[in-house]
């Protein structure tokens, strides 16, 4: 779930109308033009001018429906040549440049697994951007963004020095974002950052570039809840994870990011056909999340199923409770004053409730080198390598004891087996009483290392263009424990770590029937090492691996038809992708065993097939009309083995088969269409509207509900219902925008104004952004309604205003 919410945050960041990558058209560079291409039989490749209508529509307007191209989120962002993605998945690399997406300068964007000119990357969508100076003239820019919903307000500035003494140029940028607490139901946001980057041209056509980025963010988190809660509150942006504390709103669920990134890049250019780029970056800082924790006390969540009218069998009492919630909306939020009272009244003032701060403190060194060489007339190759080394230390601190004096350093998830040490988080310091700011709970680090050399070969002929890419590398990680947990007293440090090979091959062929008609085929096969969090079963307390964790095997193919004429652009693709060997693991409370368990499953095989198309026309002057469509089938291909393990000693409580064959493997809509209309009234005025329709949006399934345990205990009818797909309602959304730009002279300086206003979900439709089955299930009575589906609702009609001033 956290990954999903993080993913949404990334999408929200990326959908800001001024993020890099929106205008993805890239003009063929001078280096790419070859005089020999003036032959009569040579068909030019003009596809680079394609603005990727489908991808932009999905990125900026499709996220409301969890629309994922190819059914799976697979976007790689390269900043200054570095791709911050590695085996250590305990920190969110997307947050490194949080708030800076305005300041990053887009260099290239490609989709659908197409080869990029800059770098070889095996999979789908790729952004390539830079934080270095990119303007050759002195320039000031200031911009502000105001929104009434989750974007909040933002102010940012940027300064380019232009060419200076000794061929230096530099760039300064900064931003602040804020959303005042209590002004918005969803919480608060405070964010700030600064960027300094410089470039110097060196002799012999070499250059060196530096950048230093500092980033701070503190914001409340949104959470999903039951449909019943939205109905009781009457608010689509209802959040169950906050409450009132001393007559002020208090948000226990928050996330933090304190990051610094230092990057150095060296560029060497022997001649037009021979270049090298070497980037090294160091990132350090910490990311955190806070959450309300409790033990041996009542569940404080207002959306706990037992507290809701739907739990009550009697209609009179149900109505009484419903009326009570309508009359007392404060009962739908957490009462922190009540929790404080309970803590204060407890024996010795130990806290039953407290707010925990989980930290991921990281240091990461990442590098990338690439060497480009044009061979003969029609050949070029890029040789490169990505490498990295990082450590993430994970620990908890008490943030707020809510009136209590201390918190016991116990593992309250452990099932009480009578052993005096099993629940101790640290047996070398047992029964420690923790106060605010002190560490408690698991304290461990994951070290990860990877090295991935790669090669990309490109051949261009009169009718054919061929790309071939491959990479072969290694990835490894290890867990280091800094405390000895009571459940695993002999498992503190595991110096020997697994090493996994990574490899992949990709081929792309483009047939140029004419300057307008193209056929393109892409094939891919590869093996990817598991992430650390998939490998270790419970890294907080031991280094035991998940027995189902293996390298992922992936094969995919793509066939596209492209037509580019001056007034119409038409692209149509058929694709197929299969990912094998995946595993899942989760900890949950199992009602039948009345204890916390681990559910693990392996050998998952998913298949993503579909068709994508986009048409863009300019038949009518001043009107740009586009249509995109997408049919997807994303399913599990086979039933898979599973085990339920007792949390304390991992003995097998249950094992069997998860009956998931042909069930949905993604919650991306099965059928989606989008219509966009942009009217260019004058050279400075632009109006636009996008309408997206999504059909058959699967509700994300909990796979363990489809286990042999359930199959053997429920009647046939109930089982058949569980084997059927559940979809959300078919829905549409309308987004509109207007923009205006103009130029002015002021004190002999050129001033560029750019202003825009956008309205999102203009029809104010109630749209679930996603929905999923809870992990907890009634494994005793198999009442499917007991732990109902959870939703995250879109916030409805929202607007954003943006003004940018640029002085040159």
């Amino acid at each position: 779930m956290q990954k999903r919410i993080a993913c949404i945050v990334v999408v929200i960041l990326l959908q800001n109308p001024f993020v890099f990558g929106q205008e993805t058209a890239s003009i063929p560079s001078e280096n790419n033009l070859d005089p020999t291409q003036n032959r009569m039989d040579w068909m030019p490749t003009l596809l680079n001018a394609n603005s990727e209508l489908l991808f932009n529509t999905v990125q900026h307007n499709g996220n409301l429906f969890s629309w994922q191209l190819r059914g799976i989120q697979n976007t790689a962002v390269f900043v200054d040549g570095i791709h911050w993605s590695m085996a250590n998945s305990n920190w969110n690399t997307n947050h490194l440049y949080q708030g800076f997406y305005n300041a990053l300068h887009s260099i290239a964007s490609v989709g659908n697994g197409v080869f990029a000119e800059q770098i070889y990357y095996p999979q789908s969508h790729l952004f390539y951007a830079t934080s270095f100076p990119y303007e050759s003239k002195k320039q000031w820019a200031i911009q502000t963004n105001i929104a009434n919903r989750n974007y909040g307000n933002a102010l940012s500035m940027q300064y380019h020095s232009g060419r200076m003494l000794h061929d230096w140029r530099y760039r300064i940028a900064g931003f602040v974002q804020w959303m005042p607490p209590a002004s918005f139901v969803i919480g608060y946001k405070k964010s700030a950052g600064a960027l300094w980057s410089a470039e110097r041209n060196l002799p012999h056509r070499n250059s060196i570039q530096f950048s230093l980025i500092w980033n701070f963010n503190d914001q409340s988190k949104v959470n999903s809840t039951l449909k019943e809660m939205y109905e009781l509150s009457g608010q689509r942006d209802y959040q169950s994870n906050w409450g009132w504390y001393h007559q002020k709103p208090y948000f226990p669920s928050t996330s933090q990011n304190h990051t610094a990134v230092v990057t150095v890049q060296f560029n060497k250019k022997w001649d037009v056909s021979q270049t090298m780029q070497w980037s090294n970056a160091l990132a350090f800082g910490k990311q955190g999340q806070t959450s309300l924790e409790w033990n041996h006390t009542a569940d404080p969540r207002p959306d706990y199923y037992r507290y809701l009218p739907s739990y009550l069998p009697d209609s009179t009492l149900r109505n009484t409770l419903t009326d009570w919630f309508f009359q007392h909306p404060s009962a739908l939020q957490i009462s922190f004053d009540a929790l404080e009272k309970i803590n204060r009244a407890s024996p010795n003032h130990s806290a039953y409730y407290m707010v925990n701060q989980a930290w991921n403190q990281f240091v990461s060194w990442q590098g990338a080198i690439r060497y480009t060489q044009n061979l003969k007339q029609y050949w070029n190759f890029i040789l490169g390598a990505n490498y990295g080394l990082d450590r993430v230390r994970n620990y908890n601190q008490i943030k707020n004891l809510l009136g209590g004096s201390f918190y016991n350093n116990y593992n309250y998830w452990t099932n009480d087996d009578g052993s005096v040490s099993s629940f101790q988080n640290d047996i070398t310091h047992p029964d420690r009483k923790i106060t605010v700011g002190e560490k408690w709970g698991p304290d461990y680090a994951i070290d990860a290392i990877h090295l991935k050399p790669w090669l990309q070969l490109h051949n261009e002929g009169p009718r054919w263009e061929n790309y071939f890419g491959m990479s072969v590398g290694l990835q490894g990680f290890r867990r280091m424990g800094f405390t000895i947990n009571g459940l695993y007293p002999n498992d503190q440090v595991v110096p020997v770590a697994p090493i996994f090979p990574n490899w992949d091959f990709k081929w792309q062929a483009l047939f140029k029937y004419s300057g307008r008609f193209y056929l393109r085929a892409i094939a891919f096969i590869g093996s990817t090492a598991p992430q650390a969090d998939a490998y270790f079963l419970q890294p907080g307390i031991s280094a035991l691996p998940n027995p189902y964790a293996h390298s992922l095997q992936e094969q995919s193919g793509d066939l596209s038809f492209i037509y580019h004429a001056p007034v119409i652009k038409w692209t149509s693709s058929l694709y197929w992708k299969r990912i094998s060997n995946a595993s899942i693991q989760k900890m949950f409370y199992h009602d039948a065993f009345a204890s916390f368990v681990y559910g693990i499953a392996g050998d998952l095989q998913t298949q993503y097939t579909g068709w994508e198309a986009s048409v863009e026309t300019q038949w009518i002057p001043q009107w740009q009309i586009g249509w995109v469509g997408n049919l997807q089938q994303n399913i599990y291909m086979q039933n898979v083995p599973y085990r339920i393990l007792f949390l304390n000693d991992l003995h097998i409580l249950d094992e069997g088969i998860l009956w998931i064959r042909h069930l949905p493997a993604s919650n991306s809509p099965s059928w989606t269409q989008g219509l966009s209309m942009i009217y260019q009234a004058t050279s400075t005025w632009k109006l636009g509207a996008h309408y997206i329709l999504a059909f058959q949006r699967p509700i994300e399934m909990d796979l363990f509900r489809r286990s042999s345990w359930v199959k053997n205990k429920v009647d046939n009818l109930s089982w058949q219902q569980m084997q059927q797909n559940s979809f959300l309602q078919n829905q549409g959304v309308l987004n509109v925008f207007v923009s205006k730009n103009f130029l002015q002279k002021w004190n002999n300086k050129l001033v560029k104004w750019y202003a825009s206003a956008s309205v999102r979900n203009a029809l104010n439709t109630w749209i679930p952004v996603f929905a999923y089955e809870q992990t907890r299930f009634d494994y005793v009575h198999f009442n499917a309604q007991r732990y109902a589906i959870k939703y995250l609702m879109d916030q409805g009609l929202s607007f954003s205003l943006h003004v940018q001033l640029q002085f040159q």
Partner: protein
Amino acid sequence: MKQKRNYTILAYAIVVYLLITAACYKQVLPIDPQLHMNDSTMSIQAFRKWHTMGMVEWIGQPVAIEGVVVANDEHDNWYKSICIQDNTGGIVIQMDGLSLYQNYPIGSLIKVHLQHLFLTDYRRMLQVVADVDTSTGSLTTMGIPKPLFSKFITIIKEDAPIHPLQVGYKNLGDSLQGRLIQINAVEMSALDTGSTYADARNKLGASKSIKFCTGGTIYLRTSGYADFAAAKTQSGNGILMGIYSVYNAEKQIMLRDTNDILLTGKRCTGAAWLQNLPQNNPKLPN
């Protein structure tokens, strides 16, 4: 031209101001303290008289009872219920929540607003519940839902004094249900000494015979979930404090915790039994 530009800037500034300062959040008021102000308070004894054994009474009038919490779920011998008593009697309040002791510790003086609740009995033990269901042929009850605790229950004050009622065997009767009582000169039957209060491993409750030296037996009932279920019973003679309850015709007493029992004196044997007197009668801590 300049003036026009100024107006544009001013308009933009106003929009900025409104967006930043306009609060779209509805300030939520706390629960109305005036709620149930008109409820008339009656004694628990008078309230209990409304009940006919085996029947269910729906309470339509705006009435309330006041009582001190004398038992709760702190040691898990009580589950989803509390016992309150006033000077006239006691009663069980069923509440559908866990860790009730944190909100309703022993000694809390509370007021229970009874309108729209039910008065019923479980095996002749009277209780206040929020819902009853007879559709299955047997009576199923439900406690007050947790979000409605504040609707039906008001805490008047904490740390109200509690005085257990000292009673002899002959005084035990239904009027004592739900009350904290103290019985003196009692001991476990020989068969029940040295055993555990209940079966903690299998979470099964148990009843132990408590003999009065003066004659008569009451049963010490303990839940298998009680945190003292695995503790050994005492073998001596002494005094015992607990909540009086019944299970059909069986008279029972339920401990709040093991501080309620002190059977360390000499058992009623030989001359003591004949004289109906225990020897070295101990005292419970206050």
